[in-house]
């Protein structure tokens, strides 16, 4: 295999001229814009993309074969080649000319017909870009006399759905309405104040580093009324679980003047960063949205066998429950109370809110790893990875709480079994084991031999084409819950194998120290892209079926589309999102490592 198909894209982009933060094209956007996207020197992005595509074609990868076989793409390519040839250049030169050296896209709240959107491209090679655009407009029959109109003394063309296009001073301007085009042209002529003179915009853009390839600015003061649209009680969320997860972000959005995000390319990754500054410190009712890590064993989920992903959430669940009336709508509070009452029952009289949650430290982790399927067991459809919820107990948690947690786990499993029995489903066999000197409650299915789908195979004569395939069982057979407490970590897993792996890692891990990156109050999402692709490939047939039904496609078309999606996913080595809670807002970094070798 050829090496470094993604690397040229990264290296070439590193040579891009730094963004100044002092935009020129955005000077044409009016100050009523609530969002501005800027791309710096977009034409030069094409070189690495070209290298990557040519590498795909040269290697005859599956992706290249699929694209070549796609009739619509082939037709589009022929048209593009013809247009480029008519201007005397190749297709890449044509694209570079059209994309120019700077792009700005502005979005402003509209007046009843959706947002107003305007796109401005500054052309570097004006003559060539003009020639190409003329050819495109002629092909699309846009440049006919009856489609021309004058806006702010400039000749424009009317497009479909009230869109307008204009060429002025070596710039291409496209807007989704006449009003939007007028606002841009008047701003250009100095008749309106540009957004680039705004305090908030300038403050936001100052944070964008010089090596950014693109940036996004959002004026949250203008968008604030939209955040409360449709809400029963402004400032409060309806559903308890999402409220406790994202309520802090929601508060920050409502108290920030504006957010800014930018994209950078390092030598092996695409990095997106964002800053959401606040105007005031987080109030006491919202302190539960951050929780410094407890002194605990610092174990890395990435070290787990068959690791797929980890979500780490720094929440003080006890504080959030305590402040539920300030955070949730009335009906959300009711749901949270019902949940607390139900869970309290599992703890045999212990009050979940006041006697259990205060002893849970942070962060809470959701760990995901692929599962192994023994040859003598039927394979569930779809085949899911195993999940484990892991939360630390605080050092002062009473010893008796550990036993209560075990008994609560057993009681929950018994309830699941009772429900299964009522549905005539195979129940769990509850068992207790000691792994690495750690007690563990785990489950197996009581009877695998009868776990197949409840259907007479002879009855499905029409759809019985896969009767010779290995036995398959429903999605519930992915879940064989296990509960354990290793050191200070409470583990609730959907497979005993994952629970055992976590026990091994925790016991081998060193004690954490304050200030360790893993004890910081950050929210983290980490994903191994290759593991994800492996699991998706294992569910290939299911993905194709879904595609056939969702998109009304033939099996061949659905298979082709799924293969392309998997191949594209395969180019991304993973994903790492880290969101740090500041005293008044948030700062986040999303890193997308690209595969360096194939």
């Amino acid at each position, binding site marked *: 295999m050829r090496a470094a198909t993604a690397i040229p894209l990264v290296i070439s982009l590193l040579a891009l001229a730094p963004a100044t933060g002092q935009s020129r094209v955005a000077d044409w956007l009016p100050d009523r814009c609530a969002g501005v996207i800027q791309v710096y020197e977009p034409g030069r992005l094409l070189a690495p993309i070209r290298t990557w595509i040519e590498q795909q074609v040269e290697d005859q990868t599956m992706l290249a074969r699929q694209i070549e076989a796609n009739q619509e793409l082939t037709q589009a390519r022929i048209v593009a080649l013809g247009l480029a040839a008519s201007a005397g250049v190749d297709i890449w030169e044509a694209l570079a000319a059209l994309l120019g050296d700077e792009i700005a896209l502005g979005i402003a709240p509209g007046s009843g017909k959706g947002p107003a959107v305007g796109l401005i491209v500054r052309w570097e090679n004006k003559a060539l870009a003009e020639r190409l655009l003329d050819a495109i407009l002629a092909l699309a029959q846009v440049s006919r006399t009856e489609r021309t109109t004058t806006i702010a003394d400039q000749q424009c063309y009317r497009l479909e759905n009230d869109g307008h296009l204009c060429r002025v001073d070596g710039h291409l301007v496209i807007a989704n309405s006449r009003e939007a085009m007028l606002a841009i042209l008047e701003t250009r002529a100095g008749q309106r104040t540009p957004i680039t003179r705004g305090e908030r915009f300038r403050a936001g853009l100052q944070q964008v580093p010089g090596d950014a390839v693109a940036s996004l600015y959002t004026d949250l003061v203008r968008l604030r009324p939209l955040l409360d649209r449709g809400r029963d009680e402004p400032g409060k969320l309806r559903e308890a679980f999402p409220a406790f997860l994202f309520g802090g972000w929601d508060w920050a959005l409502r108290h920030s003047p504006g957010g800014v995000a930018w994209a950078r390319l390092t030598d092996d990754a695409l990095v997106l960063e964002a800053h959401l500054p606040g105007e005031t410190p987080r109030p006491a009712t919202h302190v539960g949205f951050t929780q410094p890590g407890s002194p605990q064993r610092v174990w890395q989920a990435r070290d787990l066998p068959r690791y797929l992903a980890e979500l780490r959430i720094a929440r003080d669940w006890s504080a959030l429950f305590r402040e539920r009336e300030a955070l949730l709508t009335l009906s959300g509070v009711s749901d949270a109370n019902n949940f607390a009452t139900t869970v309290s029952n599992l703890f045999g009289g212990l009050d979940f809110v006041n006697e259990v949650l205060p002893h849970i430290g942070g962060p809470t982790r959701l760990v995901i790893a692929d599962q192994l399927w023994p040859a003598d067991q039927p394979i569930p*459809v779809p085949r899911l990875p195993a999940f484990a919820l892991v939360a630390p107990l605080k050092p002062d948690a009473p010893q008796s709480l550990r036993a209560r947690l075990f008994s609560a786990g057993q009681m929950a499993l018994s309830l699941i079994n009772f429900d299964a029995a009522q549905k005539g489903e195979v129940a769990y066999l509850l068992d207790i084991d000691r792994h690495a000197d750690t007690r563990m409650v785990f489950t197996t299915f009581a009877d695998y031999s009868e776990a197949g789908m*409840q259907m*007479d195979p002879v009855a499905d004569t*029409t759809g019985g084409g*896969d009767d010779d395939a290995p036995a398959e*069982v429903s999605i519930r057979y992915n879940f064989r819950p296990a509960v354990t407490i290793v050191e200070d970590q409470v583990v609730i897993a959907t497979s005993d194998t994952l629970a055992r792996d976590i026990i091994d890692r925790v016991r081998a891990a060193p004690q954490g120290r304050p200030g360790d990156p893993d004890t910081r109050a950050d929210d983290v999402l980490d994903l191994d892209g290759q593991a994800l692709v492996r699991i998706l490939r294992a569910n290939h047939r299911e993905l194709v*079926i879904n595609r056939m*039904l969702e998109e*009304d496609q*033939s099996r061949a078309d659905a298979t082709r589309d799924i293969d392309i999606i998997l191949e594209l996913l395969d180019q991304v080595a993973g994903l790492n999102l880290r969101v740090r809670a500041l005293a008044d807002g948030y700062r986040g970094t999303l890193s997308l490592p690209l595969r360096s070798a194939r």
Partner: protein
Amino acid sequence: MPDPLRPFEPTATHPWDRRAAAHLLRRAGFAPDESSIRRAVEEGVDATIERLLSDEPDCAAHRELDDLGKALAVRNDIDRLRGWWLLRMCRTERPLRARMALLWHDHFATSNTKVASAALMLQQLRTLERHALAPFEQMLLAVARDPAMIVWLDGNLNIKGRPNENFARELFELFSLGEGNYTEDDIREAARAFTGWHQRRGRHRFVPGNHDDGGKTVLGTTGRLNGDDVVRIALRQPACGRFLADRLLREFVTPAPDPELRTALAATLRRGDYDLAATLRVLLRSAAFHDPRHYRARIKSPVEFAVGIVRSLGVRAAADELSSATSQMGQRLFEPPSVEGWKGHRAWLNSATMLVRMNAATTAVEPQRFDPDALLAEHAASEDPAGFFGNLLLDGVVPAALRAELDGIGGAGADRTRRQVRLLLTAPEYQLC
């Protein structure tokens, strides 16, 4: 009094034309596409009916979809299975068989809300499809053994000494005879005959220890009767012919059948040992079926409405969207509201369901799903889009006010045509079958 089932004879005032052909194709399937209508007009009524009754394998697109059923059942994903069934109706080239399976699903109404198994519901659907046009005896015997039906009507609780009457009662009242044609004693005795007819893990199981093997008297017949005997005794009753005739007439001809017509069809059914294919051949060819009084006399069910749009316009449809739309319109497949199935006809329409139909029509003509220009070009009808779609969707019977409204729609090109088609789909006339 002429025989209402005498063959339809085309005349100058009532010819075999696209209106008659579309009526046949719509009633014996779903709203047809332009090509199907033209072929039916060209081939004639007999050939069209034989094509509808054909038991040749379905087309490749349908078979490809068909193969997905088992995988969806393994997932126990009833919502997806519902969408899959609807998509199959959209793709089938055997629409009469699909229409009959839908009829039997309503007739033997079984709900997954209690069965709680997509696999069992699929198995029942396969049974209904397999026997859709077969002699009714085969269907009843198969349904009596169907695991989903056994769960639905508590067959596993029907044991010797404590018979559960649920299945026996519905067998007589809803499946074969109708109210007033049996006694409570008949139900009690029939329930004893079905004792021990259980299901276990998706298979019918006869459990001898739970079966009451003693003597019974059901509908005047005495003996050590079992479930099969009871089914055959029910089929021998004159009431069974009338009951089934009424069901078929309400489905295919009119929501309020004449007694003479019902009597005539009942006689046909009994003479032919309840062979449904043979009976439908007579019915679809009959003067009664083609009687102008019965033209657009029924209100389309949600499934007829949605599947018909997809088939006639060649709209791209997602399984989930079809499932969601028909459910919101009041017909949630695999979950009929009660053992009596859906009330149908006038019950399909109210202000809420009409709004859903209008929204569904709007969705159906979205540019990414529907290309009117391609359809117009295929049939050389680009000069008069409103006329073409009026012919296709309303058999050319477009009221003057509607035609004026169509012509008054502004804009140009495909966008205008889409809005015209939407107006046709939401017209009161289009809600009729």
